[in-house]
């Protein structure tokens, strides 16, 4: 009888382990019903100071863009810790962004109807030389300023962990979390981004 109980407990334990494992596996796969696609990635390279941008499409991932202003094939772009959306001065898309603040990624359930701010002009670092840093003016999003900050004491980078709701070139919605600024081998300059993109017509993001 004692042995039987032991076997039962062991079996239940195994069962619990397998169920919890399969739960883990479910994570990050898109739920096909409502068109929500999620991603958690590190951009492929660090960008240089000056005009060096990585363009990203929530449908296609990183994309090569020749003329960012006229192209509707990108949704968001990154230079160091500067960000563009396909909107305003940066592009002809229906893009824009609003800042949902430093909240939990999962707590942003749906996109707002309005409040999206389009790109304007921003200052980006061109180089650091003996005479101090030099800046150039280019197009980009004001809203994203401060999403990555350099801590002078340690020379390291931190993110503000705000959740940004981005409108895509095609007028769809995604929520974006700039999670980190380092590569897998901890070289700085690599944007780590987690997102949930609504590929359907709805506005729900969770």
């Amino acid at each position, binding site marked *: 009888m004692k042995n039987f109980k032991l076997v039962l407990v062991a079996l239940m334990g195994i069962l619990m382990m397998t169920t919890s494992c399969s739960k883990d596996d479910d*994570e990050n796969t898109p739920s096909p019903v409502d068109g929500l696609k999620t991603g*958690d990635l590190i951009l492929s390279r660090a960008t240089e100071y000056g005009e060096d941008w990585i363009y990203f499409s929530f449908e296609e991932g990183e994309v090569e863009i020749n003329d960012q202003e006229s192209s509707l094939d990108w949704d968001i772009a990154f230079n160091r810790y500067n960000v563009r959306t396909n909107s305003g001065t940066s592009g002809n898309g229906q893009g824009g962004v609003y800042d949902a603040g430093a909240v939990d*990624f999962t707590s942003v359930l749906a996109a707002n109807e309005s409040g999206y701010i389009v790109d304007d002009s921003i200052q980006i670092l061109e180089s650091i030389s003996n005479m101090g840093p030099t800046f150039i003016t280019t197009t980009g999003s004001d809203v994203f300023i401060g999403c990555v900050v350099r801590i002078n004491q340690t020379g*390291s980078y*931190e993110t503000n962990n705000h959740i940004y709701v981005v409108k895509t070139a095609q007028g769809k919605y995604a929520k974006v979390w700039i999670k980190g600024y380092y*590569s*897998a081998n*901890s070289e700085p300059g690599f944007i780590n981004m987690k997102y949930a993109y609504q590929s359907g017509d709805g506005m729900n993001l969770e």
Partner: protein
Amino acid sequence: MKNTIKLLLSIVLFTFTMQSMAQGELTIIDQESKKPVPYANICFESLGHHSQSYGISSLEGKAINKAAERCVIAISFTGYKTLYDTIVPGQSKQYELEADLLNLNQVVVTATRSNKQLKNVPVITQVLLEEEIKSRGITEVGALLEAEIPGLEIHNHAWGSDIKMQGLDANYVLFLIDGERMAGETEGNVDYSRINMNDVERVEIVKGASSALYGSQAMGGVINIITKKPRDKVEFSMGGKYTQMNQVNFENLKTNEDFYFYKSKLDLPNTNLNATLGFNLNRFMSKTNFNRNTSDAYHLISTDSLYKEYEGLDLSDVELTEGKAPGTEDFSISQVFEYKLTNKWRLRANGGYYQQNRYDFIRDNSYDFFEEYNFGLKANYQISDINNLELSFNRDTYNKNKISEINDVITPEYSHYFYNPKAIYNQAIKEKHHLTLGAEYYAESLETLRFGNEDHLRRKNSNTLIAFAQDDFIVNSNFSIMGGFRMDHHSVYGTHVTPKLSAMYKWVPLTFRANYAMGFRSPTLKELYFDFTPAGLFVLKGNENLVPETNQYISLSTEYTRDKFNMSANFYKSWFENRIGGYWSINENSKQQYNYTNINQAELFGIEVLFRYRINRSFFMSGGYSYLNDSDEVDSKNVSAIAPHSGNFRFEYTLTKKIYQLKVNLSGKITGAKEYYELDDIEINGQIGVAAYFVRYEPFSIWNFSISQSFHNGILLVVGIDNILDYKAPIVSYNSNLSPGRIGFVSLNLNVDHLYREFSSLLSKKK
């Protein structure tokens, strides 16, 4: 596992069977009270074969005479003078142990590099014993030193602990384990987590310059960790300590949440686990140690703002500073073998491995991984009663790596190793002179990304050929003189000579000591060859033309001893030359560059008072006070970040009742106010320059309390609270205390072999 335990038990059992075969009984009593002394260590050394056996006295102070032939017997116990006698097999004898309440007769090694009684060393040596470490549940060397040494401060940085002693930073304090150096340093600090406090028999602290004996870095003092030796045939002990979390950074973590690995590693429990297995069988000795520690990271934010008014510049800044201590996870294993080959030759081999993961708050997808391995060989040849030769070889390697949290890839950052063959010859001449001659070779090598090209590792080496001589001249029983010098030939800067001279005069109850010594520190491979650009911002540039930093050190001390009371006062002064510092310039690529150079001179003096008072068998107190006048100036502004006044105090109550012993400890460290100028490298008109602002830190004190209970001399239970007054620095900085506040702990240690012996003797009595 079961089999191992069985094997161990049978070995222990065998030991006892052996004991019962011998005859004769020894009784060990206290000379004054005539009461039995339990747990005294007894060593029998046979005169013919130089074989050894050991025993421990029972609760009634009894032990079996294990002598198989005519033996020298040595009986020792903490708080008593060691007693020597000769004994024959079967003899029964009573021994009266004479109290040595302040342990002034114990043998120390650091001050002279040879065995000498504490009361006879020419340079004041502070000794911290295993008992006071264990009974206070201390598992970190830094915590022990900070509590016991006035004028010693430990500052915590994101990269680890930074020690300062007698006004000097870690670059001028040499840490040794059993007299051997440790590889790897950060701003002169070795990795203190490497020191396994469960394996410490005692810590010897010699302040002042000792470079004539120990070479580079021993300008401000030497801290020598002496490890334990097994005394019984079989020894097995194990223990653990649990400390409250410093801070809970993330609550209710879920395994599938973002940054789970990063978050969980910042909140590791604060624990220590250790085990030691030792054998001491006639000619053969073995000791194996395991140690595992984990600690949680914490993040402190100042409650007061730091106002920076830069002197001479119309510039100011207000900052709410923060301090962060990393979480750690480390593991170490070490092994020592000793073998007595003949009466004259004694051989020793040791090896060890240590690793630590260090988890900081920087979310950069990686953590630091440190690794250290060492081995050593030693041969001691006792040529005759008056001379011996010791040959040794030691090698230690310390590596820093990064491990990716995402793909587990290990990226090496630096690797430092050295090897150090030595020969030391000791000769006594007519009991008046004790001559020590030594020759050493020290080769070190550093591989890092910071020697020029930051894309791949480069290696730089240096080596030093060393000869030293010392004579300890005992003029008469009251007066002795010791002199010595050392010659170093370094592959980069050439030859350097270091002398020392000290004298000691006893005029009971006073002892006077005068000491002159020169100290030096060789420029490190970093200072010689650095060429790197942190974060692309500026260049740190080494200098191959650096010469050693030196100091001339004098000290004068008086020690007063009257049976239960011991006090010493020490005045010291130190003049520094060629201190290695740096200056800013603009290099050929128009980048800001920091250049290492021999730049400044400085001097400091101080007074230190230490006392120990054993009021009676129950009450003990000790303490110290340190005054420091450090004229470390930059542009005639005092930049010394050490408090001029500091003191420490410890009170201990002991209650012994047969198998039970209680110890209550209260210790405090008081650090006086600090007023000095802090330096910032700031950019003014395109040129980085040094700007100074005045800071003041208020005095503070940290008090620790612990209660230890020992049962059968085999179970030790300690509960305690560190920082009982819950002090938290209002301004958190590199130069303030980074205690997270009041923290409780509990630790339990078991001496399995002691317990086994106790209970088997109890059982045999019942029969």
